[in-house]
């Protein structure tokens, strides 16, 4: 959805060709290493937005492929973009893949939980190192916008690392916690004679 609305935003600035839109999105998102969108993604998105009337093709420029067609935004598209723009952005910090690994590993005897923490930490440090190195090469005067997004990534990685340190320091207690309570209430109408049928 973010790509879709960003394309709308780029079209709100000015009409653009399909190939221009991909290049403009890539530049906006901080380079293809940072956020790679394929031409197919762009053109599928553009075609869907055409169908829903959010964008239109310039009448003078009706080429055969999306790449060569020039798009402009419609009033409906502008409204949709504005609605998206004015909605706050949330991520889901409590849906954490590493947390699941950690919790699963507690009750598996072949996994060394503290090793999981080390592996995760190594990965985070490598990311932090890579971004720090890339950030060092940028010029504070001309690349400030890109430095800002790198700073965001660095700060999040720092927070993840601090959290890992905290988990590690309390790992003995965490490992001893009882497994989470599982609710096994069957969904829908209970089947007759099934073992769970007498439950509420």
């Amino acid at each position, binding site marked *: 959805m973010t790509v879709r609305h960003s394309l709308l935003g780029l079209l709100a600035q000015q009409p653009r060709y399909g190939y221009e839109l991909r290049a403009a999105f890539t530049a906006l998102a901080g380079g293809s290493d940072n956020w790679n969108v394929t031409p197919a993604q762009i053109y599928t998105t553009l075609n869907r937005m055409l169908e829903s009337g959010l964008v239109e093709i310039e009448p003078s420029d009706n080429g055969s492929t999306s790449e060569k067609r020039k798009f402009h935004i419609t009033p409906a598209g502008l409204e949709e973009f504005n609605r998206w723009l004015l909605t706050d952005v949330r991520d889901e910090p409590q849906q954490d893949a590493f947390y699941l690994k950690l919790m699963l590993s507690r009750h598996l005897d072949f*996994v060394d939980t503290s090793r999981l923490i*080390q592996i995760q930490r190594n990965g985070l440090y490598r990311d*932090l190192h890579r971004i720090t190195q890339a950030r060092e090469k940028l010029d504070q005067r001309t690349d400030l916008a890109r430095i800002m997004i790198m700073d965001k990534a660095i700060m999040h990685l720092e927070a993840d690392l601090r959290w890992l340190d905290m988990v590690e320091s309390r790992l003995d207690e965490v490992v001893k916690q009882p497994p989470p309570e599982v609710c096994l209430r069957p969904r829908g109408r209970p089947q007759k004679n099934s073992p769970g049928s007498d439950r509420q």
Partner: protein
Amino acid sequence: MAIIEVKDLTKIYGNGDNAVRALDSINLSIEEGKFVAVMGPSGCGKSTLLHLIGGLDRPTSGSVMIEGKDIAKMKDDQLTELRRRKMGFIFQFFNLIPVLNAAENAALPLILDGVKQERAKARAMEWLQKNQLGDRSTHRPDELSGGQQQRVAIARAMISNPLIILADEPTGNLDTRSGDEIASVLRSLVSDWGRTVLMVTHDPRIAAYADRIIFLKDGKIVDDTLMSSDAPENARRLKEKVESL
């Protein structure tokens, strides 16, 4: 050959029931021209390790080889000589002399070594300029920001042309921005000047400038990571589990 080679290094403070094992049989090899960070919770032994490698303290047992020579076996004057010629130190609180200006502080190691004032100050100016402090050379420490003071301290550490820079929490007393600057200077000592930097820090942001991070806990190395390669996976235990299924 590794420029720093630590073997079975143990340091015990106190004795009897009060003995504290600050370092417990550490083995470590550091290649020349690398930036290495040492991390770990407070009291893990990271500063002790740095002090032993820098010859600021003597080990209880084990050896510290600098360019193949065991410094644990050196006499005090030999050790002082090695510290002066081969090592530069950077500390959390800069340790500059308040009554001396930036150039005089940076020149101090050479002056103490008997180099003439003029020549020593000229060398100091070179390193101050490399640290973007050319226009601050006559300022006293209290007229400089924390980041600037630390850059004077780096100039002082570099003036005797050491191979190894030992930094103990060099950004611990600085704000984030100045901390980044100092880490960046340390990085360039390695990348541009080919020096070896060993840095103790608790700050992930600063450690991320290094090529390698060593994690200490309770006086032992618990992990050792190269920033550019993949972590080894604990395959053996999984194999055993697969075979048991």
